[in-house]
Structures are given as C-alpha cells and as structure tokens.
C-alpha cells in the first residue's frame, strides 16, 4: 500500500460511500461471538453462496445491545433497516427467506429499528 497523503483520505472516503447494494451486518465482538455470532455469520455466507444472492455480508463491532446478541442488521431496498436480535440458525433462514427473498420483515425478532428505506 502506498503511503497516504492528505488528498488520499478523501479519495478513500468517496470510494467507500454507500453504493446502494443491500447488505447484512453481523455483530462480531466478544459478546456476540460468545452468543454464537460466528456460526450465524458462517451460515449467512454459506446460504448466500448457495442461493446466489446479490447481497453483501459484513462484520461489525458491538452495537451495545448485549442482551439481544447475536444481532444482525439488514438493509434491503424498499424496507426499513432493522436489527434482528437473538438470531440462531433458524433465524438466519427466516431472515433470508422472508426479509431478503420475500420482501417482508421477520416479525417478533426485531430488536431495533433504524430509519432509512
């Protein structure tokens, strides 16, 4: 990697702005992993590959909601951003079936609402 100079920061910033793609974000800090976030992440990766979905899967740190770990935030165009909590294997499948493929939110699993659409 070339050493950055002052203008490069802005370039990186511009290159990483929201590209409008849908994404799934899994909280992967100690508490999340302890509650099983690593398995949830792996299952998402596997299923997305299997179903050939056009969606990004990302890792992030702690959202601060330890009581609802593992937590997964989902953005799908046309639907509000939501954070699902206490996601297990079945939860992953539900999120994929309903939210990502079916364009409906998964009821009873939403722990926080983000705005956007």
């Amino acid at each position: 990697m070339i050493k950055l100079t002052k203008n490069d920061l802005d370039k990186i910033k511009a290159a990483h702005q929201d590209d409008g793609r849908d994404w799934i974000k899994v909280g992967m800090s100690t508490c999340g992993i302890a509650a099983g976030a690593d398995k949830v992440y792996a299952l998402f990766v596997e299923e997305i590959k299997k179903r050939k979905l056009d969606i990004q899967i990302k890792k992030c740190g702690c959202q601060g909601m330890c009581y609802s770990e593992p937590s997964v935030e989902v953005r799908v165009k046309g639907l509000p951003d939501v954070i699902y909590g206490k996601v297990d294997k079945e939860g992953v499948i539900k999120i994929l079936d309903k939210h990502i493929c079916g364009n409906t939110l998964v009821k009873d699993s939403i722990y926080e609402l983000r705005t956007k659409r």
Partner: protein
Amino acid sequence: MTQEENKIMLDEIASLVSKWKDKEGNLIMILHELQNFYGYVPRPAALELSRALHTPLARIYEVITFYNFFKLEPPGKHIISLCLGTACYLKGSAILLNEIKGLLNVEEGATTKDGLFQLDVVRCLGCCGLAPVIKIDDKVYGKVQKSEVMGILSQYNNHQEESVK
C-alpha cells in the same frame, strides 16, 4: 526433559530473545509468548531466559508470580474459566463455582487429579449480558444454571477428542 525437547526450548527462547532484545521492557512480552508456547512458564525455560537476557532469575520469577496471568504449573487439558465479575456474581456465579468445585473435587486455580480440568476464576470475560458465564477452553456458556453444570462438564469427560473443537 529430553534432549530434543531441550533443543526446541533453546530455539524458541533464542528466537523470542532476538525478536524482542532491542525493545525496552520486553520481559513481560517474552513471558506472554513463552506461555503461549507451553501453556505455562516451565522452570528450565525461565532459567534459560535468565541466561539469554542477562537478567537474574529472581527478577523473572518476581514478575511471573506478581501477575495472575502467568502460570508456573502445566494447565489441565480443559481450562474452565468461571467468571466472578460483578454481573455474573449477582446472577449466581458463586453458586456455580461451588457446584464445579464439588463435582470435580478441585480448588480454584488448581487442576483435577486426572489433569482433565483446570478451574480458574476470572474477573469479567466481558459478556455481562450473558451472565452468569462459564468459559471452557474457547467455548463460552452463558446464562448457566446450577443444574446445567454437570451436563456441560460431562461433554468434556467422555468423548474428549470430539468435544475439544
């Protein structure tokens, strides 16, 4: 210690010392790496380290014994870390501690006679939302009830090979 083991040890220490020798305050970092390698700090290794660093053995032991993290005894096959942080304590981890002590007939910081389990008490694993928490090796068990302890431990008792990973 066999000759071969001795050679491995000398090589390991030589490489650690050459990696860290130019950095100030390196002793603790070298001990960390040594413990990563052996699981504890064996006396022959401490002796060799003293020679290689030109540091009195007493200085090395002074540091090892001061910090809770460093161990002088080989660890048990499975390390149980029982959290006694405040959140876990409030939710009954002291009861779990007594249960484990009773079931395994082992004291805090000690290893069972068969070497299968080591019982460590730790202050906060940082999973307070899951309190009370027990960690065995790298696996974390959250919201543990006293009645579940036996079942958790027995997974490690029988088919050890499978349950490790």
